[in-house]
């Protein structure tokens, strides 16, 4: 059977009922538009909210934790090895915060194909001396270029230029800390380290992460500045931050490297489990709403095709009388359903994209999110592919039962019934 004839008949039937056909296609279009716009917006927000924390979080962080030595001498002795030994009041051993052999660890990590990049860091506890008052804080010594490349550091420097940190004795203050100290750009502040060293640092910028508590405490300086502040050599590093190509392998890799390097390693999943859960639930809800819309429009198509079949019983009967078989009639109505689906679907994708662009223009400014000026929208082609596929599937099923009904029409009954 030639498809051209089937398509021609389907077209004629649709043109004869242009209005209903358009309404059905509009229904599909509307639902696809909403589906694409909703998912794009929802996932844009997800990405942004997750990015707040996840962008700034290394996939694996290596550090030395201060804790009691798990291998106490009594457990090693021949005599008490197999006994239950209880020791009270163990104190942490005088282990160093700095990572031993950090240079070769970094070299090793950078050679690993799973690793996107490595950035060393020093976290130093300090007091900011403001008049007679000391404010506690943390100065993070960072490798400025690597921090900017891997952890979007520059996005969060709201005032000033992050590259100024490369000059010695400069600092970028957390916005909260700066407000408390009334420190302007260009001011020199005094910092006392936990070891008692006093250093003067020049403020070259403000840092605003969007998390208030974090900004009240944390400030940034270059790794050299912090090493100098602490009076430590150039090899002194307390943290190694690793970004992976695929962050899902972080837990496995963290436990593997923990044993190799004999230091503590935290992976992003363990540290930030709640973010992923929230993201998953939000996308689940938006998929549920989107698919509901599509199913509803499917019922619209089902209704309209059913109506069309009742109106066109004569046509179906005559087609059968002049030699069209059941599967031809079936194909005609499936063609109608799919045409409505394709036309509505394509228009829906276009309008969905336009709706995304429109949402993208809506201003959205908040203190907490310094880098965001308008609502974020995710234009991932994935949502367009899912939307298009679902529109075809739902319209096919919406057409399936009416088409089957049409194919079963008994022409004798219709022709005799006149």
């Amino acid at each position: 059977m030639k498809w051209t004839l089937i398509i021609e008949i389907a077209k004629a039937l649709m043109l004869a009922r242009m209005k209903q056909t358009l309404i059905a296609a509009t229904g599909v279009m509307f639902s696809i538009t909403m589906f694409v716009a909703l998912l794009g917006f929802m996932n844009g927000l997800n990405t942004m909210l997750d990015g707040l924390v996840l962008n700034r979080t290394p996939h694996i962080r290596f550090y030395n934790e201060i804790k009691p030595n798990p291998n106490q001498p009594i457990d090693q002795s021949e005599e008490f090895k197999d006994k239950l030994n209880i020791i009270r009041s163990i104190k942490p051993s005088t282990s160093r915060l700095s990572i031993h052999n950090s240079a070769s660890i970094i070299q090793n990590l950078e050679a690993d194909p799973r690793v996107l990049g490595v950035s060393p860091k020093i976290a130093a506890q300090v007091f900011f001396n403001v008049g007679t008052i000391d404010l506690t804080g943390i100065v993070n010594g960072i490798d400025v270029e690597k921090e900017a490349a891997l952890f979007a550091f520059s996005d969060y420097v709201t005032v000033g230029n992050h590259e100024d940190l490369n000059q010695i004795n400069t600092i970028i203050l957390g916005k909260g800390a700066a407000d408390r100290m009334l420190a302007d750009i260009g001011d020199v502040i005094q910092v006392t380290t936990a070891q008692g060293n006093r250093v003067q640092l020049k403020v070259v910028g403000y840092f605003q992460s969007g998390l208030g508590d974090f900004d009240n405490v944390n400030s940034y300086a270059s790794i050299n500045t912090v090493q100098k502040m602490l009076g430590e050599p150039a090899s002194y590093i307390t943290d190694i931050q690793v970004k992976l190509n695929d962050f899902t392998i972080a837990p496995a890799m963290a436990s593997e490297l923990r044993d190799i390097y004999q230091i503590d390693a935290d992976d992003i999943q363990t540290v930030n489990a709640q973010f992923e859960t929230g993201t998953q639930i939000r996308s689940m809800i938006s998929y549920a709403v989107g698919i509901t819309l599509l199913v509803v429009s499917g019922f619209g198509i089902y209704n309209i095709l059913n109506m069309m079949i009742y109106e066109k019983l004569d046509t179906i009967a005559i087609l059968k009388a002049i030699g069209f078989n059941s599967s031809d009639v079936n194909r005609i109505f499936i063609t109608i359903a799919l045409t409505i689906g394709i036309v509505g679907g394509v228009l829906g994708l276009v309008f969905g994209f336009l709706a995304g662009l429109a949402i993208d223009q809506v201003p959205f400014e908040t203190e907490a999110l310094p880098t965001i000026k308008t609502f974020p929208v995710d234009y991932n082609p994935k949502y367009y592919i899912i939307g298009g596929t679902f529109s075809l599937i739902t319209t096919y099923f919406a057409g399936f039962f009416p088409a089957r009904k049409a194919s079963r029409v008994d022409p004798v009954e219709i022709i005799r019934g006149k």
Partner: protein
Amino acid sequence: MPVLEAKNIDKFFYNPSKTQVLKKVSFGVEKGEFVSIVGKSGCGKSTLLYILSTMDTDYQGELYMDGEMISGKPKNYLAHIRNAKIGFVFQFHYLLNEFSVLENVLIPGLKLGLHSRDELEHRAMEKLKFFDMQDHALKRANQLSGGQKQRVAIARALINDPVLIMGDEPTGNLDKKNSDIVFHKFREMAQQFKQTMLIVTHDPEFADGTDRTIEMEDGKVIRQ
């Protein structure tokens, strides 16, 4: 060899109660014959026609078309037979209102797919010319009068050069003038093309003009 042969056709209706509407109906139609079936309404002549047309498959007995036994054949094959070998004319015209007159005539030909569209269009115009409808070829079917529609319907029945034309009271719904035109076209087809035709009618004048009349009463053939 008869073009159409019915042997011992029995047909029952089950609704509301079991009644036999056709009782051992047997007859044949020879090639080139113009045959009419007459009888009072309710005698089963239309029922018989729908069985002969292959659309109604719920009967007992044997039906041969062109020497081929077609009882019990699959529905898709029967649809093909209707398309290729039978031309249909109904009482209520039954053109497709969504299409133009020319397209209506074309569709069975396109369905059969033996000829190209251009050639079919040429043939369709020939048929329309024969029925004096060539000027209306591009009109919509619902813009025609009843008599015109019926002439187009006959043209459509002819497009695939069927071995047999069947009609269910083709003049039943027409006024005297149109009914005469249609009847004369049937006569012309019989004389000029030796077209085999089997027409159910209750118009005695129409029946008188045919080569042979099969008379039915109470589901039986009483005279042929």
